[in-house]
């Protein structure tokens, strides 16, 4: 056994300073709370910038369809309309696909197949918006114009939705592109939600002699309803704010048209297109107000989605949001 050293090293050690602890806690806390500050900053900057337009146009800003930079008359209705319609189309396409895929991944797929599909979906989410836009312009739009839209018009042309001239660039094209872009997030959040359904639920249903589909429908989907709603609303939030790809395929025409084949314009794309060339203060302020509207709407949808998802899926699901 070695000799115990008698020399105390306590003298060599520095006395602990509480200052270091306090400073570190303070700094990290400041950084953490900066996210809340940042929300306020975004809101405040947008509000400040839109002051001029808010005072001049008031509530008429969101109801008027007149967007005339030359006369400095600004009404955002066509953009709001375009945003809502394109997002709605996207949801109609994306929601059934995403939920079905999530069901497939959690309930049906052989375990070997699950991870590869999940990886592919993750990669889909990683593709930058501008690349979807590029693909939209040069691949999707020509295909829609030549092959898809004429057929739709032939069979469903009696509906006002599918009438009018075909340009290719259109609300429908934008909706499709947005759908592709929001499918990954809805799928991955839905998947986490479904995974959080306790196995007991499934076993109980199997115990009653239910088939696989019946188990899914009765035990899983109805149990996960609220969380899935959250996933869909989250997807809606992303759809509303989607900018580049939409700007590249929607046609950028501030009109309110009944036809899905007609070009449109969204809140995000009008900012993307016109902000850099907005010369007058009023013009700039109107664009700020559009951003404010967009910000407010996406914040509300996001908060709603967060509440639904975190009530349902716990931390894992809210992690999937990223």
């Amino acid at each position, binding site marked *: *056994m*070695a*000799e*115990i*050293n*008698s*020399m*105390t*090293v*306590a*003298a*060599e*050690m*520095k*006395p*602990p300073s*509480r200052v270091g602890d306090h400073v570190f806690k303070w700094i990290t806390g400041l950084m953490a709370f900066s996210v809340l500050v940042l929300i306020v900053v975004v809101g405040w900057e947008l509000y400040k910038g839109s002051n001029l337009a808010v005072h001049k146009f008031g509530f008429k800003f969101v109801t008027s369809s007149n967007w005339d930079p030359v006369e400095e008359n600004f009404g955002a209705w066509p953009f709001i309309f375009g945003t809502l319609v394109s997002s709605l189309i996207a949801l109609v396409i994306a929601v059934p696909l995403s939920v079905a895929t999530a069901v497939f991944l959690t309930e049906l797929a052989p375990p070997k197949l699950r991870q590869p599909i999940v990886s592919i979906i993750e990669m889909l989410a990683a593709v930058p918006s501008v690349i979807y836009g590029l693909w939209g312009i040069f691949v999707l739009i020509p295909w829609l114009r030549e092959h898809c839209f004429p057929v739709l018009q032939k069979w469903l042309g009696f509906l006002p939705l599918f009438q009018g001239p075909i340009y290719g660039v259109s609300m429908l094209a934008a909706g499709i592109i947005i759908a592709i872009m929001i499918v990954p997030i809805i799928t991955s959040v839905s998947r986490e939600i479904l995974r959080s359904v306790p196995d007991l639920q499934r076993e109980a249903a199997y115990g009653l002699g239910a088939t696989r589909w019946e188990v899914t429908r009765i035990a899983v989907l109805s149990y996960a309803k609220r969380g899935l709603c959250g996933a869909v609303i989250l997807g809606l939030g992303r759809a509303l704010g989607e900018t580049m790809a939409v700007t590249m395929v929607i046609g950028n025409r501030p009109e309110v048209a009944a036809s899905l084949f007609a070009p449109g314009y969204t809140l995000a794309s009008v900012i993307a297109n016109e902000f850099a060339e907005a010369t007058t203060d009023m013009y700039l302020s109107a664009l700020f107000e559009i951003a404010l509207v967009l910000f407010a709407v996406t914040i509300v949808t996001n908060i709603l989605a967060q509440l639904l998802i975190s009530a349902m899926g716990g931390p894992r699901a809210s992690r999937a949001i990223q």
Partner: protein
Amino acid sequence: MTSELLEPKAPSQAGVPVGKGLTPMENATASRPVEPPARADEVAFHVEHLNGWFGQHQALFDVSLQIPARKVTAIIGPSGCGKSTFLRTLNRMHELVRGARLDCQIRLFGDDVYGPRVDPTLVRRRVGMVFQKSNPFPTMTIEENTVVGLRLNGVRDRRLLRERMEQSLRMAALWDEVKDRLDKPGISLSGGQQQRLCIARALAVQPEVLLMDEPASALDPIATMKIEELIQELKRDYTIVIVTHNMQQAARCSDYTAFFYMGKLIEYDKTEKMFTNPTHKQTEDYVTGRFG
């Protein structure tokens, strides 16, 4: 007695064993007076009226006892009886748990452990701890693991560090096994070696007391035996408090034994008496294996 002197001990007021074989390194402080060896019946911890809570749940009820210096004191009792909680109050680890509260008077060699101006990190430098699950830091080598307590407390002197490392590893009876691979990760060692590395790590900062929370419960019999032998060696210079659920272990290696049940200290006496002729019925039932 009532002093709150838990600042780093100035060499002159050493409450730690003092003595022999000063290296050149230590000459700077070698002029301090050499104190006579402490009395055999010196008390390390005075614990009075210790009550502990986790949120609303009270885990410890009015525990009072005195832990003698340079002896091994074992804490036994069925799981959930508050023995680990008690141990963790001695070096102020209890308060790290969210919602934990404490009401007590604890003195370590006369110094108030829970005084209002006492820095818990200084208490922890004087009261080392070894945990149930061995936990060498995974990013560090054996060498780094051993002296991490010194390095992160501001000791920069390479030679001193090197020296303390060897000493600590020797004290932990690990030196011969690892001296050729000090630069290997600490977690590359076997379970028993890892636990001894953790003991070396705790010894390196030269505490006065070593708390051990079931240090051998995850180890095989041979590794357990080594730890027990080590405890016998260490008690010459250190006060050791060991929590164990293994009564044979308590009987084998402790001088005093405290029996806890439902958060209360039922009985506390010389180990020999506790295991042969306990005063309380509950103690007897427990040590004879009738419950727990």
